[in-house]
């Protein structure tokens, strides 16, 4: 009996681990996103325990207390001590999560001093323009032209986000961060990429007919390659691709 009873339990455990792994966000490729990734995992652990306890209690009561006869069960109306307990415990949990949230938030939104790279990102229907401040370099996207924002690895990139028409967002899934581009407002935030690569970016705020086409790329390159790309793009004064 024992092994056959354990086997389903093992499968259940494997499934649970797989689901928990699937429930994770992708690893972040920025310093700021790492704080979000850690915070998300903290929430996930606590959520898993809460879900297991509460759904376990529900299922247990249904199985254990099925109707077996006509006799009425004891007619209890409540229990002050119990009710106080399940008021206080969730309060403590959310206060703890709030403190963790504040600490992560400070790391995510921190914009200390001057950044090494300053990019003004202008979102418009339905693409982006990346203007590299103080260099004259500019990348302009359009229909059938997916723009690429080239940034150096390991350097603080300050994004100044504006919109030319309606509300859009700047969102690179692997940074775990997004911000709305709101007409009439300049939104500033920092991204420090710690891994080279090409990352998918996309507008997430519905912005009209071709919202689904409003994609871009962020290419994180070494600082040397970034400098040569910048020089090349500045010389041409318009959209350029990183040299190979």
């Amino acid at each position: 009996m024992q092994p056959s009873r354990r086997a389903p339990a093992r499968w259940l455990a494997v499934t649970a681990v797989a689901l928990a792994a699937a429930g994770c966000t992708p690893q972040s490729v920025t310093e700021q996103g790492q704080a979000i990734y850690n915070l998300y995992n903290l929430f996930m652990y606590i959520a898993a325990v809460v879900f297991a306890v509460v759904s376990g209690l529900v299922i247990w009561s249904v199985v254990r207390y099925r109707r077996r006869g006509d006799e009425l069960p004891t007619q209890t109306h409540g229990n002050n001590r119990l009710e106080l307990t399940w008021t206080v415990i969730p309060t403590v949990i959310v206060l703890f999560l709030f403190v963790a949230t504040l600490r992560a938030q400070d790391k995510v939104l921190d914009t200390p001093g001057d950044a090494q790279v300053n990019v003004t990102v202008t979102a418009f229907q339905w693409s982006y323009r990346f203007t590299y401040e103080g260099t004259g370099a500019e990348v302009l996207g359009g229909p059938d032209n997916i723009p690429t924002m080239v940034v150096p690895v390991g350097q603080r990139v300050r994004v100044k986000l504006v919109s030319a028409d309606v509300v859009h967002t700047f969102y690179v899934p692997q940074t775990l961060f997004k911000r709305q581009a709101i007409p009439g407002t300049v939104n500033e935030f920092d991204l420090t990429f710690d891994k080279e690569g090409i990352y998918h970016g996309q507008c997430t705020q519905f912005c009209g007919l071709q919202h689904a086409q409003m994609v871009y790329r962020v290419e994180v390159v070494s600082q040397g390659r970034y400098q040569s790309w910048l020089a090349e793009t500045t010389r041409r004064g318009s959209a350029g691709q990183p040299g190979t």
Partner: protein
Amino acid sequence: MATTELPLPALPEAHHEERGGIVDYLTTVDHKKIGILYIVTSFAIFLAGGVLALLVRWELATPGLQVMGENTYNQVFTMHGTLMIFLFAAQVSTGLANYLVPLQIGAADVAFPRANAMSYWLYLFGSLIVLSSFFVSGGPAAVAWTAYAPLSTNQFFQGTGMDLWIIGLAVVGVAGILGAVNLVTTIFRMRMPGMTMFRLPLFTWGVLVNQLLILFAFPPLTVVFALLFLERNFGAHFFDPTTGGSPILYQHIFWFFGHPEVYIIILPIFGIISEVVPVFSRKPLFGYRAMVFAFFGIAALSFGVWAHHMFATGLVYLPYFSIMSLLIAVPTGIKVFNWIGTMWRGSITLSTAMLMALGFILVFLIGGITGIFLASPPIDFAVNDTYYVVAHFHYIMVGGLLYGMFAGFYFWFPKFTGRRLSETLGRWHFITFFLGFNITFFFQFLVGLDGMPRRIADYQIERWTSANVISTVGAFLTGVSVLIFLWNFFRSIRRGEPAGDDPWEGNSLEWVTSSPPPSHNFHHLPEIHSERPAFDYRHRDDPAFAGAHTDPERNLDRG
């Protein structure tokens, strides 16, 4: 113990029994018939919204535009949200409330029967105005149900469809405010002698708090629609930054309505669950007063959390809106634990209504827990406006609202019609719905975490395909479950097993009268000794349960 039959309240007007033709429904001021009209109309809108949802899922199953073009897709998902949120979710519970609240408080009708009829007809014609936008040139609005300015202004979105959308929804909003005045007055002023506030059934409490929320949340919605209409048609510049307007203003006013709207939708459902669980556990509701206070806790907090929809704007004070949103978990948790406390050591029957209630608790738990994630601004930065949010609020809206609504339908259908819905078909309905729903939305959490934005007609990223295919399969299974429900409904309304007046051994007053109730609701009313008048009435000759013994007001048998 003998029960004293109370004299009936004076009848508002002469009633003719046994009418029920179409003319009668067109002219009725009877709260029960108006309730039925609300339920039938909103359910028809739900079916239309459901078809639109299936179109969305069909298009998204694989990359590329197969079923429709971008513009059509944008119209379809906009109208899906509009129909479901504005014209179905907030209205179906108003229908149930119309039918049940006067019965539960021992009244012959609502406080203002004619205004009640007017609410319904405003709601119907408002909805028809919104739906008429399908037939104008350019078609319906394609700006998402939130209609953020400046996208929804005439500078970026022309066409009469958008104006019909605004006008229709404004009319429905006025209907809601009028209905709220009516139901709140009814609950405060029309209770029978002995029906104190703390003896009200939890469904009536849920309706009271939900209608109070409508009174405070719908006027801002009307305002923002008025501003948008002026901007579109009369050259106003409320939301145009180039002339001193503010796009963010739209988001603030909209969500000041929009978040309480979630609780407007869900509070009556909490009430339904709080009726169904005690009856099928054969125990009183655990922690009645805490449940009532939790309603008010949720309602109060719901007006302080609107900007958690705006964390990604970078223009709101994050810690305040974060802590307020997190705190909503506390009263909501009280509710869930008290339902478990009610079932604990009970005598549980797994009727379809109870299965739906249990389904509600489990999926709402997932919806609630993921809501905690979204209340944390850094996590919200990652998942806001992705399919994670879509999955989250469908776990609340479909999971919460639909499970609760179906629990209520199976529970009260015998009262409405005198017949039971088939329990066998009910089980099939439950199983297909539970599977279909979870298959549809669970995988949206995963693809959302992977960065798939919401409201896109197409995607090029191949690894999002598998989750989308699974989700589409689940959506069609959910569609099948609704067909099973419809079959059950049409079969049972004609040939269902006769139910008698009190098929479930109910607790609240509606189970004392006949099924369906007479036009003036009660031929006689029992004395009220507790929050379970029908229970007391059934056990009137049993010394163990007679009268005040079970009265929570006297706090007799609390542990």
